[in-house]
């Protein structure tokens, strides 16, 4: 127990400001700070996301999972991933829509209460990516569901995903 507590103490708070490495690496690091502030202002700590992998290679899943690490501190920005579509405001879809996932994707969307938003994540979600359309793939998410925003990248970085979420939510919130 002592060891655990001591590690927590020694590690400290990692979220904000972004680590030196990231600042040096990404030209957009000041943008990240304002992004966090924007997210908080717009969402007011209440966005529930349901993620569906509609046929992805699992690369995008890794970056969505990375949003939960202490650097990005997703929940601190008011965003929560939920286990049921019935609790969700926003559907985050990865992958080209495989023929075998088409029905499950439609059902998940139908189970969400309105108003609802859809984001297609990654090059595959945007247009089918390298997999395109074929006997096994319906291509981009927009071929199956109404999509508000697409986030390109293979896979998109966690920051790109955060930015995409904000872009989707901002007009929707103004509308409401």
């Amino acid at each position: 127990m002592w060891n655990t507590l001591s590690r927590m103490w020694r590690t400290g708070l990692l979220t904000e400001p972004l680590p030196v490495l990231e600042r040096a690496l990404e030209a957009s690091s000041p943008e990240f700070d304002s992004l966090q502030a924007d997210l908080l202002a717009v969402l007011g700590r209440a966005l529930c996301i349901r993620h569906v992998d509609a046929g992805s290679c699992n690369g995008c899943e890794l970056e969505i999972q990375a949003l939960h690490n202490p650097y990005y501190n997703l929940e601190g920005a008011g965003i929560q991933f939920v286990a049921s579509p019935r609790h969700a405001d926003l559907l985050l879809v990865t992958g080209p829509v495989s023929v075998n996932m088409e029905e499950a994707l439609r059902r998940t969307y139908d189970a969400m209460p309105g108003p609802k938003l859809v984001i297609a994540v990654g090059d595959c979600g945007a247009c089918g990516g390298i997999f395109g359309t074929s006997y096994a793939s319906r291509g981009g998410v927009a071929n199956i569901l109404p999509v508000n925003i697409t986030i390109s990248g293979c896979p998109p970085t966690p920051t790109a995903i955060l930015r995409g979420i904000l872009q989707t939510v901002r007009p929707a919130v103004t509308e409401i």
Partner: protein
Amino acid sequence: MTMKLPEFLESRRIPLPGNLPGSRLIVNREQWLQYAAALRDSGAQLLTLWGADDRDRDAHFRVFAAYLLPQGMVVLEHAMTAPIYPSLAELFPAAQRMQRALYDLLGIAAEAVADEEADTRGWLRHGGWPQTFFPLRRDADANRQHPNISAPYPFVTVEGSGVHEIAVGPVHAGTIEPGHFRFSVVGEKVLRLEAQLGYTHKGVAKLFETQPQSSGHRLAARLSGDTAVAFSWAYCAALESLAGTVCPARAASLRALALEHERLANHLGDLGALGNDAGFAFGLTHFSRLKEDLLRINSIAFGGRYLLDYVIPGGVVADLPVHAPALLLHLYSELETSVTNLRSIYDEHAGLQDRFRTTGRLEPSLAESLGALGIVARASGIARDLRVDHPWPPYDRVVAKCMVQSSGDVAARVQVRFDETFESLRLCRAFLQDLPAGPMHAPVPDAAPDQLGLGVIESWRGPVLIALETGPDGFIRRCHAHDPSWQNWPLIEYAVIGDIVPDFPLINKSFNLSYSGQDG
């Protein structure tokens, strides 16, 4: 371990190009089974099974079975006019799902042998295309879209007083891939689990046939995003062996460095997730932080957080920037200190160990007879690791150690991950400190048509394989990719028996198998 090659192998073998020593044998219908049995008796494992429609070339269908022996790879090839061949499932249970997939893609059927019960349920075909459409046949129009006509999948049912079913998926509660799990339970105790996979089937094998040889590595890397380096390396190894290209020494070392970084990223992620699934969120926080540190260094050293396009035919995309080695060495020390500390926290946490130990046990004898691969096998006492058994360059310059545990439970799979993390850090340092000079890539000419080459790489999950057959004009004729998840998925169904339903996420995570890699 030295083992004699079975005699038929010595006399009739044709050398098979690849990064591992390999032989190819052309066999008839009887020998297909007979040799498989002899191979099994000499300690071979069935690594993968695939088929091809060669009616346009010589009016035959073909099936190929790739076996992994202590001496290297052996591929048996059987040509037939009618699309039917003897099933290998009696000898190698892992063959069953692969044979079902082979039928769905090519319409080549495995004929039940002896008293084996044939399983004719679709594996990759869920109703998204007609039963008479076989996408990998040469005359199939793969771009044509078909309406979805879904039908219920006939799961094996368990009957008895108080038995009920729990259906989970394909959409799961967390950020993970889709698959369906059907539990038959009494109270909370699992009596039987049956998985139905294939949800993420994207037609990768057919797509390969439209690609020039020079760009197939991009598709290979996207078969399973978490195994991108291993798959793209396997593809490049197969292609280079056919084109007569030798990857320059510096590029080979950088490939190995990337492969070990992929192993580290996945092991760190899994160690955190395993703590979390056992109710210890602290573990997830700390390990996911370490993983993020690694990914950020990846983008400095290799040009991307995930190395999907780092390995290219002939070598790697770019050299390390000049300041990268110092950053990398610093990262390795940080990781070593942190993971040592976190390991002692995990080891001393009674609640965590209570959830880990004896949970999801896979008996070593069962793991052996069902053909377990990779970390799952090593946690059940099977000391197999291609980096150790068949060190291909540059692993021949470092002596990798095989990390083994014998208890076969979640705790063993956690320990193997810890041990491999430290071993991987050691290998990274060795590669980095002894980085040869030289170019980043060598030119890869188009390989001559109608040749078969293999690339087999020990990924973080286990051995991945690419079997590449070349076509004319620098195109791919057929490319088969194999993920070790094929072998390990059925093993989860054994590991959960007798455990309770809430332990399933923990057990599943301890295997951490690829859905996309299996579904193709």
